């Protein structure tokens, strides 16, 4: 019982605190969500763990945070975080939740590794990336119309 009350309070607090932050960021970065402050959200990331055929992807994180509705659209461990408890990332105190993130987000590859035929339903790293991107980029017409778009839009083909 105590726990629930505590959680509710925490959520209210978060909402309260996040509200002005979003409003503030509106002016400079658009309507997207922001990383918990104290953790610096990366500007661009080099996604290179798979670069065998293609050059690494230069991923503009800033831009994506500005257009995504919510972090969990990509960082899906948040809403369904059964394995990871809140306190693993946040020190949950009433006053300091906002600055409480101890680590960045969990890297995709820490769960999604090579394809495991024993778990056919579980995406490997490549599928995890692509499915995430294609949520929007398929609708945007970037993929699904021309195989060339792989190298034109996201990752240039490696030479040789």
């Amino acid at each position, binding site marked *: 019982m105590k726990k629930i009350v505590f959680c509710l309070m925490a959520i209210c607090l978060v909402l309260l605190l996040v509200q002005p932050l979003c409003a503030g960021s509106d002016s400079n970065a658009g309507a997207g969500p922001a990383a918990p402050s104290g953790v610096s959200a990366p500007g661009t990331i080099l996604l290179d763990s798979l670069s065998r055929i293609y050059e690494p992807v230069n991923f503009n994180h800033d831009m994506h945070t500005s257009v995504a509705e919510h972090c969990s659209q990509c960082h899906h461990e948040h809403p369904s975080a059964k394995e990871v408890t809140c306190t693993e990332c946040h020190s949950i105190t009433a006053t300091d939740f906002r600055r409480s993130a101890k680590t960045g987000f969990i890297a995709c590859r820490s769960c999604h590794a090579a394809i495991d*035929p024993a*778990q056919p*339903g579980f995406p490997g790293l490549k*599928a995890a990336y692509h*499915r995430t991107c294609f949520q929007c980029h*398929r609708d945007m017409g970037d*993929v*699904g*119309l021309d*195989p060339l778009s792989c190298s034109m839009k996201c990752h240039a083909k490696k030479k040789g």
Partner: protein
Amino acid sequence: MSLDRRQFLKTVSVLTGSAVLGPYTSALASGEFHGWPDRYGMLTDFTECVGCRSCEKACNEVNHLPQPEVPFDDKSVFDTQRRPTAHAYTVVNRYENTGDPGKPIYRKVQCNHCNEPACASACPIHAYTKTPEGPVLYNENLCFGCRYCMIACPFYVPAYDYASAFEPRIVKCVMCYDRIREGKIPGCAEACPTQSVTFGKRSDLLKLAAEKIAKDPERYIDHIYGEREAGGTGWLYISGVPFEQLGFSTDLPEKPMVEEVKGFLSSVPVVFTVWPALFGSIYAASRHHEAYTREEMQHQSKEGGKEK
């Protein structure tokens, strides 16, 4: 060429029909076998496929097939419906998506590695094998090129190398049998960026497909193609649009194709045993009749002679 005893017995009984019904029916009964439980299969989810042709490219590389005339990232190939050829185990075709015209649907085509392959029941030289692991393999060293397997395959899969003068052969997907044996997964499944081509135990894939459909009935039509078609195939498919819109045959019998000829084959030993007896006795009867008439005639002519 190792000929095991069972095979030999089968052969002898088919040829002579002598040991008749017993061994022969048991030879046929091998068709009743429903397959190794742990065999592998594939699941293609057409809702995930984006038509990037990575699978085609990977297949070409891991199987050392010749470079295609049109590069793998050229979308012009989608203007026609292609099929696997002597130079490509698999091809991806594009279909119009009536529900959402902006998102065409892509269908990867390759051998379905049937549970009871029609190609294998067609081949007079036993050049095909359904392996316990699941892939259906073809042995070029046995084939004499009658192409009956191509007639029989309900999915239009095997292709023939008509341009080769001395070593023409059937070409078809082998589900990367060698890679599976090495513990790797097939080239196409590894290359697919969205894992719309998924490798695993067929039984697991069936479960996965059913789960996906149950979880998102808006996204999928309620049918797993290959679960039962043509006796069941190793390669399964789920889709957001009805399968006939993607060029699938939807009128295949649920029985394996070989069932269609079993009735005929089982008449073989009967003919071998009954016919000699039947026609032998007819011959005897007609001989007897002939002899009888001849005697009669001689008799009559003798009597006639006397009377004169």
